[in-house]
Structure formats: C-alpha cells, structure tokens
C-alpha cells in the first residue's frame, strides 16, 4: 500500500497479511474479504471505512483471533495469532452488557476474567466510569441507562485491564448524532492519554477522519483495500475542525472513492 511507506520507520505491531475470508452457503461461496493486507504500528489509530457488507466486521473478528481467516495470517509483533487474543479490549456495535449486572459489575467482568486484584480493579473501574461521565451510575442496571451510557460502560469494560489494543466494531453506529460526537471526543481523549493501538470500524466518513491517523477505505463486497489515506491533522482535534478546508479535503477524497465504486450514487 502506498501509505505503508510513511510508517515504515516504526516496526508494525499488528500485521494482517493477505487475509481472505469466504463463507460457504447453500447458494455457493460468499467472498467477504479478498486479499487484505495492512499493518498497524504501536499506538496508531487506524479506521476501516466501507459500505455495509464489505467485510469490515469480519476483518475485526479475524484481527481479534475470534474468527480464523480462510487464508492469510494475523501476526502480533511477528508472532502468529491462532486463538482469541485475550489481552485486547473489544467494543461491539451493541453494548453487549449482561442485563443482570450493574454498570460497575459489567466493567468488573473483565477484571474477573483477568483475575485482577478486586479492590484495586474496582477503584479503577469507578475512575474509568467517572472519566466518561458515569459517576453516580455505577449501581444502575443496563436497562436504566441510555444507549450512549451503555456504550460508555462497554468502553470502560474494554479498557479496565489497560489493553495494548482496542478493537471497535462500529461502536457508535447506533447512537444519535450528538451522543456520537461526544463519544468521539471521549475516545480521542482516552486514546490521547493511553496511546493504545486502535482498530476502528466505521461507516461514518467524518468519524473516521476525526479520530484516525490513517483511514483504510474498502470496496464493496468482496472487501478489498481501495485506498489508505493518512490523516495529517493536528491533535487534539476539535469538532469545529470538521468545518476546515483541510478536513473537507479528506472527506471529499473518501467521498469520491465511494462515488467511484458505486457505493453512493447521485441521481
């Protein structure tokens, strides 16, 4: 890829090599991913943007070690991934909270899985919840929280063990526009403090540019890499920055790609 050169100085952390995924169905094979290769250096924020059904989620599941690729390989620091990666944090499109556990209890699930020392983990869980504006909501059950709050709990659960990588599958796709903006700001803040490596799946052009160091645009089914775009905007980014010519240039570039591939059609 063209943009790989710009990051060649740093050694890759996550490396996806020639990933293909084909699903067998009664109506014949369905190609989800076709020869996708991309690597991510430590601390990088990479977004994957593409239309529904382009295999973005499949890519994330393979990167998480939760789904085996049909061909190709995933490596972390050069070591192949053959089982679920348990050191990472995952955020799905739906919050995937346990309804019978409180907000705090849901965050603590990760601590229980990692066998973290309970008291320290609980302190940390409370700090995390407070940092995303959920102080005072620790004892609430998921059904008592709004969609945005649930997704924040899910984010805290993915962060409590201080993972080196965060995998996010359209995490804010189901939220209203204002909540989404706020969570973008929150995520940028968290990333700024911890600098974990993020693989972020989205189909929002603005969100991808706002958050990312690089945006990988995918073609419609089967998913191939269309172009990888470096986002050279100063950080921390502000919402107002979305209205600047530099930002507009990037969204125009992505828009043109989507129009050219027929993902979007102007009548």
């Amino acid at each position: 890829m063209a943009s790989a050169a710009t990051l060649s100085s740093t050694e890759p952390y996550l490396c996806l090599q020639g990933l293909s995924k084909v699903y067998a169905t009664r109506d014949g094979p369905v190609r989800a991913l076709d020869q996708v290769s991309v690597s991510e250096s430590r601390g990088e924020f990479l977004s994957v943007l593409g239309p529904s059904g382009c295999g973005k989620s499949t890519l994330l599941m393979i990167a998480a070690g939760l789904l085996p690729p049909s061909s190709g390989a995933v490596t972390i620091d050069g070591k192949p991934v053959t089982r679920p990666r348990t050191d990472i944090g995952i955020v799905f499109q739906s919050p995937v909270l346990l309804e019978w556990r409180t907000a705090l209890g849901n965050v603590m699930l990760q601590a229980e899985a990692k066998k973290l020392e309970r008291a320290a983990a609980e302190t940390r869980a409370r700090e995390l919840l407070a940092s995303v504006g959920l102080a005072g909501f620790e004892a609430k059950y998921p059904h008592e929280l709004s969609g945005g709050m649930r997704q924040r709990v899910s984010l805290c659960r993915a962060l409590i063990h201080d993972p080196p990588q965060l995998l996010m599958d359209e995490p804010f796709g189901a939220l209203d526009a204002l909540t989404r903006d706020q969570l973008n700001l929150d995520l940028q803040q968290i990333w700024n403090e911890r600098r974990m490596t993020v693989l972020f799946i989205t189909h929002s052009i603005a969100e991808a540019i706002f958050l990312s160091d690089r945006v990988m645009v995918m073609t419609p089914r089967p998913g191939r890499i269309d172009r990888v775009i470096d986002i050279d905007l100063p950080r921390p980014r502000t919402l107002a920055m979305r209205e600047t010519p530099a930002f507009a240039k990037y969204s125009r570039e992505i828009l043109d790609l989507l129009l050219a591939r027929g993902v979007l059609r102007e009548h």
Partner: protein
Amino acid sequence: MPDADNPTARPYASLSIEEVEANVQRNLARRESRERVSAVVYPVGVVLAVFVLWEAGTRAFGIPTFLLPPPSIIAVSMTANAPLLLVHGWVTTVEIMLGFLLSIVVGIPLALAIFLSPPFARSILPLLVSSQAMPKVAVAPLLLVWFGFGLLPKVLIAFLIAFFPVVINTAVGLASIEPEKIDLARSMGFGPVATFFKIRLPNALPAIFGGLKISITLAVVGAVVGEFVGGDAGLGYLLMVANGSMDTALLFAGLVALTVLGVVLFLLIEITERLAVPRHIISGNPAARESM
C-alpha cells in the same frame, strides 16, 4: 383584552412551571393509588360476587346439594373435614414435591446434555417428544402394576408429566444468547466453564424458571391422576371417596384444597425466582425487552 401573540397577557395560562410540575406529580400519585386499590378491590369483588350469586342461585332454584352445594355448605364441610384435608393434602404435597424435584434433577442435566451434544439431541428428541404425545393418564395403570399402590407410582407420574417443560425451557434458554456475548467471553479469556456459569446460565435463568412454573402446576395434575388410578391416600383419593359417597360438598372442599396447594407451590417458585433473578429481567417483564 387577551392578546394572541402574547401568552403572558392571558391570566388562565399563567401557571408557573413549578405549579404545573406539582399538578402533574399529584395527578400521577392519584392515578397510581387508584390503580393500587383497584388491583385488589376488583378481583376480590368479582370472587365475592360469584360466591353471592352461587349461594343465591342454589337456594333460589332449590338445586340439590349433591349436585351443586352452595359456598356456605362447602365452607362448613371444609371446617368439619379440616384434619382429613390436611392429612391427605400433606400426602399429595409430598408426591408433588418429589415428582417436581425429580423433574429438576433429571430435566436440567438432560437439557444440558441436549445443549452440549447435538448428536445426543438428535437421538433423544424424538423419544422425548413421543413421551409427551403419549397420554400419561394411560400409563398410570402400568406404573401401578410395576410399583404398587404406594408413593412411588404417583411421584413417577408427576415426574413424567412435569419434566418436559423443564427440559425444553432449559435447553432453549441455554441456546438462546447473543453470539456477541460468547465472542466477548472468549476475547476476555473466560474458559468454557466460566463462560457457562458467568454468562450462559444466568442468561438462561428466566427461561428455566418459566419452565419450572409450568412444571410445578403439571406435577399437581400428575400426583392427582396417580391417586385417581390407585391410591389409599391423598387429595385425589379423597375426591374419589367423596364422589363415591355422593358427598359433593367434600368433593368441592377437596378441589379448593388442591387449588390452594397449587397456587402456594407456584408462588414458592416465583419467590425463589425473585431471589435468583433481578426483577427487571424476569421473563414477561416489559422492562426486560427494553434492555439490550
């Protein structure tokens, strides 16, 4: 003069937001207290009305007591036969509880095996389904031949009728879970056992309790059927005796005792459910459907 463009000029529209707030809250409190009262008064009123009509009807039309005794005669019979009802009621309770416990002890492991092993599920399901299609009342005489007139055949009939909903609900409850929850557990590093106890089992509890509630009511039916076919004790036996001696008031007294027993056992399961499962995710609770 009222000015349409200036609402503050209209005196009748000048409630402050605090006053509106107070009104709205007061209305809500009134409506809720009305609903609380009617939740008790209406059903009690209907039951009383039925009794009054029943009492008046049987007297007015001179219906013979052996056909339909009025509630007052049934009440008299219940008081007079209280020791009898208690003794036989206890026998039936033991049969029901043993049959129900057997349903759990057999049903839940069976459901687990069905869930864990698709080949086992495919092998056992036809047998399970046909065991349900077969009328248990018809099997009762056979069990009597095999196990005599004692406790065992009644417990077995109660079990045969009651275990099916436990198996089905548990198996369905264990299987129905968002796939993301399982992906999440794997990525967190939970092994199969921890995933089962921390995620899959709690997720299935509302369905399992749904099955237990059906099961306990069916166990009552099973025990009574067993006593009908061959028994020397229990409320079912008492019903047969009352029937044989044309003591319809005692028959009704036995029916009332069985109803009370069934309701109490059902409530015991519900209380256990309340203790085991947070209120908002008990199945049938609308709040459960709102949450993800």
